[in-house]
């Protein structure tokens, strides 16, 4: 009997329901939550002030230039969308693989996905020189009878990101509906009853409803599975379709997907560890959950390491002068330290997870999750910036130096993410209640 099973044995339908829904409905506001909420709200305000200034003045407030015309906006986009992968991966793929342990973490992982993907979706728009015309990338009837240019990876991107966002939202919302019904039925104030009731869509748990619900949930999982793989593959095509050394690489799709899961699982740990502590959810998000996430992290780390290796290998094996120059510059050029930081964070540091003690140490995992996220963000910056700063024409070589606005918008987006997550914890059940009930039932049946 696993630890998860052992811990769940203590719970019944009622207690499980009450425990999780009370986090939302009854638990008094904790000062740590309140403090975090205020801090992240201020950070979010900074983000929106930064965006306001950006729209007023132009993207020249960033460090981007020619040759490095893409900067933090694209790196942040790729990073955030990567973080937004773990949720759907956990929900969809682990559902299909019937990994029971996913139940405790899928809800908040999906929320994490939504927030991360939503923030990610913001960046390509902020990135534009004329963001107010972003809708020109989607097909819509217009006087000029113009269509998007379907050969552009950016159009693929728009479709991939919006599809991913919409499908993730549907998937997540679908899962929340029965829990909203629970909250509706357990809420004591009229306002909460009405609000939760509205979003619960009148769910009443009828058997045929459950049957169709489960079917569509499973099918969505099936659809979301290739989608998870496709989103970061398409994002990687933004680069791989390009002809610039450092972008133009066939290994990019799998390497990006693995990197996405890597940072996504790291973010799951970053969020789960404090959450289970502050809301006393150790029985649902157990040490075993953390350990499994750590193993996924280790596996992704190796795929990413393979990506680093194969990029270097093909550069020399292919004997392309420009590729070799790019790799050498990556190692020893101006941005060299970034590369070694990436290797340390993403390849060296995760090796500690070979030790069971490390996998079971909450603090080790928490620190490592932050290290991995730093590493993955740095990797995105490295790919976006370092590849461009020295491409074909030495006469056009230049440097990208981030400005204070680059940092403000990055920092603000992180604050905004945590702001949304804190709000989510407060207003929606962070763990799927109906699935926990089902799990309890399955435990009893055994």
């Amino acid at each position: 009997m696993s630890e998860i099973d052992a811990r769940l044995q203590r719970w019944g339908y009622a207690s499980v329901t009450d425990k999780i829904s009370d986090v939302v409905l009854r638990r008094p506001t904790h000062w740590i939550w309140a403090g975090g909420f205020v801090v992240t709200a201020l950070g979010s305000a900074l983000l929106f002030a930064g965006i306001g200034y950006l729209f007023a003045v132009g993207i020249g407030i960033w460090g981007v230039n020619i040759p490095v015309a893409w900067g933090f906006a694209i790196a942040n986009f790729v990073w955030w969308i990567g973080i937004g992968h773990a949720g759907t991966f956990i929900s969809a793929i682990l559902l299909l693989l019937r990994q029971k342990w996913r139940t405790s973490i899928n809800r908040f992982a999906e929320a994490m996905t939504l927030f991360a993907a939503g923030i990610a979706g913001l960046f390509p728009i902020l990135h534009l020189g004329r963001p107010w015309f972003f809708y020109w990338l989607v097909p819509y009837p217009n006087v000029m009878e113009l269509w998007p240019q379907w050969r552009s990876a950016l159009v693929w991107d728009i479709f991939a990101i919006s599809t991913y966002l919409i499908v993730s939202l549907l998937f997540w919302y679908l899962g929340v509906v029965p829990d909203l019904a629970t909250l509706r039925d357990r809420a004591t104030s009229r306002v909460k009853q009405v609000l939760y009731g509205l979003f619960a869509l009148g769910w009443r748990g009828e058997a045929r409803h459950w049957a169709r619900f489960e079917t569509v949930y499973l099918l969505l999982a099936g659809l979301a599975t290739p989608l998870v793989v496709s989103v970061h593959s398409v994002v990687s095509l933004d680069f791989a379709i390009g002809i610039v050394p450092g972008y133009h690489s066939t290994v990019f799709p799998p390497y990006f997907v693995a990197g996405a899961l890597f940072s996504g699982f790291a973010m799951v740990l970053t969020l789960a560890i404090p959450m289970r502590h502050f809301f006393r959810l150790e029985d649902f998000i157990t040490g075993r959950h953390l350990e499994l996430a750590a193993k996924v992290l280790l596996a992704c780390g190796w795929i990413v390491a393979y990506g680093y290796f194969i990029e270097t290998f093909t550069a020399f094996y292919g004997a392309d002068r420009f590729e070799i120059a790019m790799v050498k510059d990556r190692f020893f050029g101006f941005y060299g330290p970034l590369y070694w930081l990436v290797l340390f964070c993403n390849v060296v540091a995760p090796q500690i997870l070979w030790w069971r003690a490390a996998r079971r140490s909450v603090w080790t995992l928490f620190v490592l999750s932050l290290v991995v996220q730093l590493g993955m963000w740095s990797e995105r910056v490295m790919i976006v910036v370092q590849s461009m700063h020295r491409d074909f024409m030495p006469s056009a070589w230049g440097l990208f130096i981030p400005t204070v606005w680059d940092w403000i918008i990055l920092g603000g987006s992180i604050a905004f993410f945590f702001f949304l997550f804190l709000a989510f914890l407060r207003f929606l059940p962070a763990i799927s209640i109906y699935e926990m009930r089902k799990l309890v039932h399955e435990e009893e049946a055994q």
Partner: protein
Amino acid sequence: MSPLYGLMAEFATPEKLKAAVEKARAAGYRRVEAYSPFPVEGLAEATGMKKNWVPVIVLAGGLAGGIGGFFMQWYSAVISYPINSGGKPPNSWPEFIPVTFELTVLVAAIAGVVGMLVLNGLPKLYHPVFNVRAFDLATRNRFFLCLRSGEPKFAEDSARDFLRELQPLGIWNVPA
């Protein structure tokens, strides 16, 4: 007394509910509804659900999205407004694949969710069963069987008797 929507019985476990549903069907009740706080395997079939149309709707949505998506790209790039973009032919079909794929998934997913809601008659914010106070527990830890009025077999007294035999935790009138 107001007309009845049906009669409702409350149970403590899904097994009891399922057994009750099966008995009700065996007894000749056709309009049997079962409510549970989580999906219970086989319960829907027990209440008499035959065909689940959701997969068909998802498939249709996927096909429509995929074929429509490719057609949109082909039509716009070849017929409506052909443009020389980087020397590539107007029908650059390999480059139309990503959007085709995404639209397949997107339309399939939306069709599935919308189809499920429509088939379930949701959203429906008011429903007679909500009038039963104890029904609040249907989203917590109780399992409900509802025999609906309006079929020849249903008569309030006999139905109540039938339910009583199932030894539920309680029996309620569900006003329409």
